[in-house]
């Protein structure tokens, strides 16, 4: 699924666009704990859905090869987070949806978990 389509499905708003909306998202991670994310995410080019809103999210995304981060419950990233994401080339999206609903919608559209577990 393209990043553009992900944004449409999540009724998201782009807080920072660092490039190609046609980039193919292969899997999704959802966590507020960064070490869980680093431990279980095994696939590159994935999307992170999180309720955590700070620069640590961007650092972790960079290390784990995550191309875009979705902040749920309308949480807006602060200036520092946006600036770091700009430097690292990570697109930031905000949705009013909860983590549960955001994940459910993408799952229903056929996306899989970044852990590689079966559907």
């Amino acid at each position: 699924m393209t990043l553009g389509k992900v944004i449409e499905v999540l009724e998201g708003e782009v807080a920072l666009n660092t490039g190609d909306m046609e980039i193919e998202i292969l899997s999704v991670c959802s966590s507020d704990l960064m070490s869980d994310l680093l431990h279980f995410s095994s696939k590159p080019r994935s999307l992170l859905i999180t309720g955590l809103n700070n620069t640590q999210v961007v650092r972790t995304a960079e290390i784990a090869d995550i191309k875009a981060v979705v902040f749920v419950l309308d949480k807006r990233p602060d200036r520092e987070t946006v600036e770091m994401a700009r430097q690292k080339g990570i697109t930031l999206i905000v949705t009013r949806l909860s983590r549960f609903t955001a994940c459910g919608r993408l799952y229903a559209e056929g996306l899989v978990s970044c852990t590689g577990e079966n559907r």
Partner: protein
Amino acid sequence: MADKNIEGSFHLTGGDFTNAGAASSELKSIMTKLNISPHLVRRAAIATFEAEMNVIIHAVAGVMYYLITPDSIKVVLNDMGPGIPDIQQAMREGYSTAPDWIREMGWGAGMGLPNMKKNSDEFRIDSVVGEGTTVEIIIKIKEDKTP
């Protein structure tokens, strides 16, 4: 791939969350420029990042030293911190001594040390209570069989 040895070091300051992860980020960029396989870069970056975060969270200060040869990536982190009384317990998934405010920042899941081990080909940890902890992460380049 590196055709000669490349080494360097970063100084880490405990509690400096503004720059937390910056050393691992820089090292990831160095490895990428050396055309090391993205799979290995990712493993090395995750292991290093976790080790760096542990220094920022728990220690007063530390040094991250790296040596990249045509055969391997070696990263050693040496900190001046509280030390780990029971390494076996600390290696257990989910075990954490991080305070609540660290958890609120997204850390302290108790997966840091297991993550370092999981992503390393060789992993060593040595700690003296009241003095500090040394972590050594080695990722082999030539023996990588992952596509």
